[in-house]
């Protein structure tokens, strides 16, 4: 028996992922699609001797491409030759959904419509005659409630039946105005005899896509050296008006289909309107958002704390066992500092990352996150960022790693890269121990203010960075804010749980390896040549520190500080531990630092500024590489961070020296 390949598509917020989970349970993994950075989830369902392979495509309103997500959906639909296209349609909002339907019908791929949220539609007095709808479209329509898995069995049966029937596809056709139709035929005939079309795309469908303004298809054809009849002679204004004719024809078709199969009573003020008026209020909106986020933030780090503590205890236990065993000290060091230390660094991030994803998923499901983005848009816009960037920023104060992963909700690549670029300047909680140590030694009277200054400095550098890159690299405005506000819904625990598990596992798989590798490298630097004391002046790290020290001399750093910065690359709190080793014991670190005459308060402050701004830690770097999908941008982010850290530290040193008079 063959597998049945299904592409699951639909508008955003229609319950696509819920249906996907209902179809495939936890048998999911990320499909590999070359050249794209957005993940496509693939799942399996066994039925009889057959397997349904379901691809969960990113939500899209149409086959035209404006965002990376939509690009993925469009490419999969046009070029991957699925057996079936399964469109999930929101029964409470059928008209808008039908626009995409009219495009999918033309692909000539067997199609099924899953009419979701039929229960809500009933409640709202929307009566849908699904048989009439099916007749009108000449497509199988199955009523489902994805949340309670009602009708999902029937949906699976219909899929299998449709495949077994092997009927030729004869979907309802969109009626275009006469002039449009004749051009479609002209282009279609030409393409049929001249062009090599991607996938199983028919020449007629390709012609319609071109008339509608599919730039990617047009480019593919131009790359083949073809001159598209009629269209290539049109000026941009004519092209736009043709695209509009096609658009209007689609809406007319959608309306006709609606008219005969849907009866609804609407127009009353809905509770959602009232909620919207409160939570997006001009004055209350931002305080409501901030308190929501503060709560989520607190919850993340307090809920993660016991897990992190448990992990620490378990690793301490391993540590003891190995310390107690009789073995070569070098191997022991490798096991304790390298292996256990490495796995420990990976795992210590896990609890907070899982909880962040759980909370984000819940907030997203309720429909609140979209409103929050709207509330923050104006402020963020003035900094050259998109409203949605605010959520990653806030998370960045906890840990940059999940924050960088959260930039996935941004649609334009430019907005995403600028956000990722500025995120490492949000002072994450790992930097706090370093601040506490140095401000305690050098600024005991004003320690609190100095720490506050560092947080503010991070934000200022982030804003300046965003402005610079928006002005000179990604020219133009942040992509205009147009966003659907999904209906308020009760979040589902299972869906959030699956989402959390999936995202957390991805993190472990991709970032885990980088972090682990990074820890091993630092261990090796601190341990070689064989026989030296771990992290001492004679070790490779020590030599490297002394070698690099002249470079940092303008900032006033001694070689110990330089080595600590190298170690800080693993995780910024490691700076404290490694200084402890270098100054002969963490217990006496306070007094040794105070006694070191090469250090002044101004140098200490410059060092803290450097710790704030330089390299993201290895974990953050791992996810930056993963999320930008580009080594070039990863290198730029590292280089830019080092450059900014150096310059700002230098300025800080001189201003602080001037003020303190040393």
């Amino acid at each position: 028996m063959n597998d049945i390949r299904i592409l699951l598509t639909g508008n955003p917020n229609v319950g696509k992922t819920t249906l996907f989970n209902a179809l495939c349970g936890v048998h999911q993994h990320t499909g590999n699609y070359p050249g794209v950075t957005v993940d496509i989830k693939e799942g399996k369902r066994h039925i009889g001797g057959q397997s349904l392979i379901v691809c969960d495509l990113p939500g899209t309103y149409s086959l035209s491409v404006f965002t990376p997500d939509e690009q993925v959906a469009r490419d999969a639909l046009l070029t991957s030759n699925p057996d079936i296209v399964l469109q999930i349609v929101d029964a409470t909002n059928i008209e808008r959904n039908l626009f995409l339907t009219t495009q999918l019908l033309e692909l000539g791929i067997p199609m099924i419509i899953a009419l979701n949220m039929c229960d809500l539609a009933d409640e709202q007095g929307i009566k849908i005659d699904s048989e009439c709808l099916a007749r009108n479209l000449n497509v199988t329509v199955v009523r489902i409630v994805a949340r309670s898995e009602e009708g999902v069995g029937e949906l699976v049966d219909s899929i299998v039946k449709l495949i077994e029937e092997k009927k030729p596809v004869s979907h309802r056709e969109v009626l275009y105005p006469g002039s449009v139709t004749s051009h479609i035929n002209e282009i279609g005939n030409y393409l049929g005899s001249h062009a090599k079309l991607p996938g199983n795309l028919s020449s007629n469908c390709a012609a319609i896509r071109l008339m509608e303004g599919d730039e990617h298809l047009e480019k593919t054809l131009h790359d083949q050296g073809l001159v598209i009849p009629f269209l290539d002679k049109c000026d941009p204004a004519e092209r736009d008006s043709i695209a509009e004719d096609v658009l209007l024809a689609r809406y007319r078709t959608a309306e006709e289909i609606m008219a005969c199969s849907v009866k609804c009573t609407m127009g009353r003020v809905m509770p959602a309107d009232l909620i919207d008026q409160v939570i997006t209020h001009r004055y209350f909106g931002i305080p409501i958002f901030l308190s929501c986020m503060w709560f989520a933030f607190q919850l993340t780090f307090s809920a993660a704390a016991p897990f992190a503590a448990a992990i620490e205890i378990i690793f301490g236990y391993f540590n003891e066992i190995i310390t107690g065993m009789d073995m070569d000290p070098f191997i022991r060091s490798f096991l304790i500092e390298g292996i256990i230390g490495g796995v420990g660094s990976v795992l210590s991030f896990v609890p907070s990352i899982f909880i962040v994803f759980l909370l984000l998923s819940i907030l997203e499901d309720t429909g609140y996150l979209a409103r929050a983005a709207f509330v923050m848009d104006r402020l963020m816009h003035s900094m050259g960022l998109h409203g949605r960037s605010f959520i990653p920023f806030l998370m960045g104060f906890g840990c940059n790693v999940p924050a960088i992963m959260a930039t996935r909700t941004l649609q334009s690549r430019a907005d995403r890269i600028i956000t990722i670029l500025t995120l490492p300047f949000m002072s994450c909680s790992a930097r706090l121990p370093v601040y506490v140590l140095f401000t305690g030694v050098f600024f005991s009277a004003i320690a609190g203010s100095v720490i506050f200054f560092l947080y503010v400095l991070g934000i200022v550098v982030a804003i300046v960075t965003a402005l610079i890159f928006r002005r000179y690299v990604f020219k133009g405005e942040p992509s205009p804010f147009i966003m659907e506000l999904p209906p308020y819904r009760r979040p589902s625990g299972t869906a959030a749980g699956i989402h959390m598990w999936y995202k957390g596992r991805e993190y472990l798989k991709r970032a885990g390896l980088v972090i682990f590798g990074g820890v091993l490298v630092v261990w090796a630097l601190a341990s070689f040549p064989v026989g030296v004391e771990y992290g001492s002046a004679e070790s490779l790290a020590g030599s490297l520190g002394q070698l690099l020290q002249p470079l940092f001399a303008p900032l006033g750093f001694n070689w110990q500080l330089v080595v600590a910065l190298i170690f800080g690359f693993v995780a910024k709190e490691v700076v404290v531990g490694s200084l402890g080793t270098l100054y002969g014991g963490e217990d006496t670190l306070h007094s040794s630092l105070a006694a070191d005459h090469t250090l002044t308060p101004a140098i200490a402050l410059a060092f803290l500024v450097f710790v704030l701004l330089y390299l993201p830690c290895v974990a953050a770097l791992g996810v930056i590489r993963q999320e930008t999908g580009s080594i070039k941008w990863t290198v730029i982010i590292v280089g830019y961070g080092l450059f900014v850290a150096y310059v700002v530290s230098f300025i800080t040193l001189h201003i602080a020296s001037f003020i303190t008079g040393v």
Partner: protein
Amino acid sequence: MVPLSLSSPGEKVVVRSIGGTGHIAKTLGHLGIITGTELRIIRKNKDSLIVRIGESRYALGPGAAGMVLVDLLG
């Protein structure tokens, strides 16, 4: 005809035309904001709006709201 950004909360308006072309205009079109669509204004913060079309709600930033030209229905 006035830009959507000049209408007030609670008003019902009908779209008369979409000023400009390009991606924003197309995005609006694919969301169902086309000539003839009736919108209700739910909220307005300065030049940003939340509008409702049937059962769908959309948030439009100043750039997008300025492109939609509407007539007041009541």
